[in-house]
């Protein structure tokens, strides 16, 4: 067992879910990126806990360094707990010139958090990400895979948040 794993997230149920995901990926270590993404989706806080990383290393016979190489390299995979609804605000050029600064500020105000922080109830995290191709509906956010666009006013932003919960 690794150092610093106080998080007991790997319950029997989760292990079963992970095994199913591995089975769907033919227990093939070369499908690691897809496996990590799928696991991240079933974990409520959308991240890869240390325990899970070691569990995968064991199950797939892949070095733990390879697993962390992927986790740390790819922006869509996280080793830190996130909120139930991570709000990813596009910070690339098209959204920027369509005033995503207003979007950032309004979200901070409505959620009462800063960038990369989580609300007290663990529901929302505010993240800044690179272009996800929602340029035709800029400024846009992406939450758990779904894109919400044209977020130009406080009303529209509040509506988006209400739709999530």
């Amino acid at each position: 067992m690794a150092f610093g794993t106080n998080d007991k997230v790997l319950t029997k149920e989760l292990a079963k879910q992970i095994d199913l995901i591995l089975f769907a990926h033919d227990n093939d270590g070369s499908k690691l990126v897809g496996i990590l993404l799928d696991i991240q989706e079933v974990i409520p806080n959308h991240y890869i806990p240390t325990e899970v990383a070691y569990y995968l290393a064991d199950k797939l016979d892949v070095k733990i360094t390879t697993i962390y190489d992927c986790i740390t390299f790819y922006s869509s995979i996280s080793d830190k707990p996130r909120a139930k609804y991570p709000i990813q605000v596009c910070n690339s050029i098209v959204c920027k010139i369509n005033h995503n600064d207003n979007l950032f500020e309004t979200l901070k105000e409505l959620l009462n958090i800063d960038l990369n922080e989580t609300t007290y109830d663990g529901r929302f995290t505010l993240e800044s990400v690179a272009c996800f191709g929602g340029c035709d509906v800029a400024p846009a956010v992406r939450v758990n895979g779904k894109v919400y666009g044209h977020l130009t006013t406080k009303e529209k932003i509040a509506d988006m948040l209400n739709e999530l919960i």
Partner: protein
Amino acid sequence: MSKAVCFMTKNFGKYDVKSIGSYMAIGGFNALKKAVNMTGEEIASTLATAKIKGRGGAGYDMGKKWSQAKSVIADNKVVVCNADEGEPCTFKDRTLIEHDPFNLIEGMIIAGYTVDAQNGYIYLREEYSHLRPLILDAIKQAKTYGFLGENILGKGFNYNIHLYSGAGAYVCGEGTALVESIEGKSGRPRMKPPFIKQCGLYNLPTCVNNVESLSLVSSILLDDEKKYLTYGTEGSVGTKLVSVGGNVKNPGVFEIPFGVTVRDIVYGLAGGIVDDNEIKLIQFGGASGKIATKSILDTPYTYEDLRKDGVGVGSGAILVVDERTSVIDFLRTTQEFFSHESCGQCTPCREGNRHIKLLLKKVAESTHTTADLASMRKIAKIMAMSSLCGLGETAQSALVSAMKNFEEAFQIK
């Protein structure tokens, strides 16, 4: 009058994207049926006649690519569809998959048949994860109908398509980084040679094509009247998908015949500028593309004319920025993007991006000196010459073109 055409987008909205039956009802898989009665060389030469250039951005001759892939002697080969559309302001591949997924599958099967591959891989960026079910379902239905699997259409051709997901890394759009990622590793580009056409995914000869390139194949093969050749100009034949965004009234994806002017696209199709503002700059081909002043509006959108004016077609993105944004702010955002997306493997790209970012900050604060400008030019040149992959080579395209076209923005105060 609209300047848009419907050649590769002709199926948009014409069938139920969830049903192979409805795709076949409008002539789907006829191109594949025709293809399996041709040789790989014939198919490649048909593409060469249509002078199709790869639509990912590099613009490599597609007929040549396929005939080279065909001529490689190996027991196993693979086809890869690059759906890692990461260039900011590029969303044409997303549109193609959303509206015509079976056409992409058909194009990939024809690619596999042409180059004698056994497997095809679609590498879809994580940001488009909402399209995964659509593609998986299309693959499944194609299998049920015998267009994938063993002995396809009774021609002894065995071929399967697999869907792989990216995980949010722009650099994975680069061919060798992409195959590293499919192999379950971090997406750091490989040293070249060997080139992936000889030794790529799982060390097999690999033929990588963009979504738009593959989506063109069926229409070209069925184009008996050579309608495609009537579009465009002599140097740039046919049509192209452009994705127009930024401060325009009607951002979106349009299929245009090569040769319409940039003005036709920006003011005609995209509806002009928000609040009728003046244009500050236009960037072509995504973040790695060059920028031009509004004097480019009357240039025809073709490979050769854009090159003459110092920009390029690239991914087909056209980003229009109005006067409310300064050139330096624009460059700093682009620089932020590359500093974030550089994989850090090779020194010129990793360190170059870092230094340019610092120097641009000085320019923004008007504390820069002549020596700083010279440093920027020098670093940009070193990056373009000695980076390991296309990311580092093109990261400073916007900056270099800005220093040429917007000299006043760099003036020392």
